């Protein structure tokens, strides 16, 4: 059976930078505390008029331009998001239209911080099944619309942004570039990260989530095994940028050296489903991605939901 592969990445961050010192003016916290506990130095926040769809469109346009494909080549657009204020129309349909992609299959998908890995798997399966030729997959979030800026346990963590990838079929005879996804959920722990009420804010059991997330290394090992790749062969590890301490703990348990591990959270904050493609786009810009080699992507968060897959870097 034919496989799917990633052709290119693109990322978008809003202009406004919010530093730890800025937050310390509002809540009882400090630059030193935030750096040591979550590893964030600054984050980006979208403007009041800037929507999830605006950011999705910007990131999608960059990925499309980098892929060498034209809008006419794309017939499927999937956006992973958990932070839109308005449930309809879908971000995917509107962003596709703005990008000049005519009449694609388009839908949004919510697996919170695991969303991009879920969407990438869904899109790859569509390409492999022959339902789609080329697809655009986007993670886009305006998490700050769901923040209580007086809750110091969440307002220091979450941020806004978008990232995207273009996925295509691999020619006959070439190996697949997107490995089998290993995914799952634990809805019985759904109250660990949640929004209650339409005008509510994100609340999180930080310690409980930390314990759960730092114990997810078997998921990463399963994804490697399904792809036939040893962890030592990975040239890049891009886990969801939830908290640098979680990223470092997972990397240590997997034995992956730090220079191969995404640390985009330091200047991007936790952008939920956008964090994995945003980190990939930045690593690509910095020349940190080695074309043709395996990288491990991993998402985890509210649901609780989780997913991981090995991809061949474009």
């Amino acid at each position, binding site marked *: 059976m034919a496989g799917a592969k990633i052709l290119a990445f693109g990322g978008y961050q809003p202009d406004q930078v919010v530093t730890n010192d800025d937050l310390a003016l509002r809540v009882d916290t400090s630059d030193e505390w935030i750096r040591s*506990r979550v590893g964030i130095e600054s984050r980006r926040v979208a403007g009041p008029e800037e929507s999830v769809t605006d950011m999705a469109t910007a990131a999608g346009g960059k990925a499309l331009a980098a892929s060498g494909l034209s809008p006419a080549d794309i017939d499927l657009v999937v956006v992973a998001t958990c932070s839109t204020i308005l449930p309809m129309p879908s971000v995917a349909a509107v962003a596709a239209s703005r990008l000049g992609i005519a009449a694609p299959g388009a839908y949004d998908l919510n697996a919170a911080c695991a969303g991009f890995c879920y969407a990438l798997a869904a899109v790859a399966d569509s390409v492999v099944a022959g339902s789609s030729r080329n697809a655009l997959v986007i993670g886009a979030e305006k998490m700050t619309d769901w923040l209580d800026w007086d809750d110091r346990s969440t307002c220091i963590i979450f941020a806004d942004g978008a990232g995207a990838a273009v996925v295509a079929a691999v020619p006959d005879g070439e190996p697949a570039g997107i490995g089998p996804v290993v995914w799952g959920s634990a809805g019985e722990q759904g109250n660990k990260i949640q929004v209650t009420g339409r005008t509510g804010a994100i609340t999180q059991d930080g*310690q*409980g989530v*930390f*314990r759960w997330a*730092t*114990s997810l290394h078997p998921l990463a090992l399963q994804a490697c095994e399904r792809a036939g790749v040893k962890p030592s062969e990975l040239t890049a590890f891009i886990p969801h940028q939830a908290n640098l*301490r979680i990223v470092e*703990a997972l990397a240590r348990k997997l034995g992956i050296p730090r220079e191969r591990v995404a640390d985009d959270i330091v200047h991007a904050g936790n952008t939920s489903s956008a964090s994995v493609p945003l980190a990939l786009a930045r690593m690509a810009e910095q020349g940190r991605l080695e074309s043709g080699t395996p990288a491990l992507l991993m998402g985890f968060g509210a649901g609780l939901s989780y997913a991981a897959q090995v991809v061949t870097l474009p």
Partner: protein
Amino acid sequence: MTDQEILSGLAEIVEEIAGVPADEVTPEKSFVDDLDIDSLSMVEIAVAAQDKFGVEIPDEQLKDLKTVQDVVNFVSKGV
């Protein structure tokens, strides 16, 4: 498992997770005040201790385990 075995196993965990040399992990030491280990590292240590000793240390219990001896006692009771 003897308390001495639990102590040496715990010291290995603390060295791996927090970078504190194992021989400094002695019974009377306080994790926070003497070993400079914060609450998130304590969670990691609890998870590693569970893997190693088969005794679960829940989050709500963790805040009461202030010294190395406290953890050794807790694990010792559960083994």
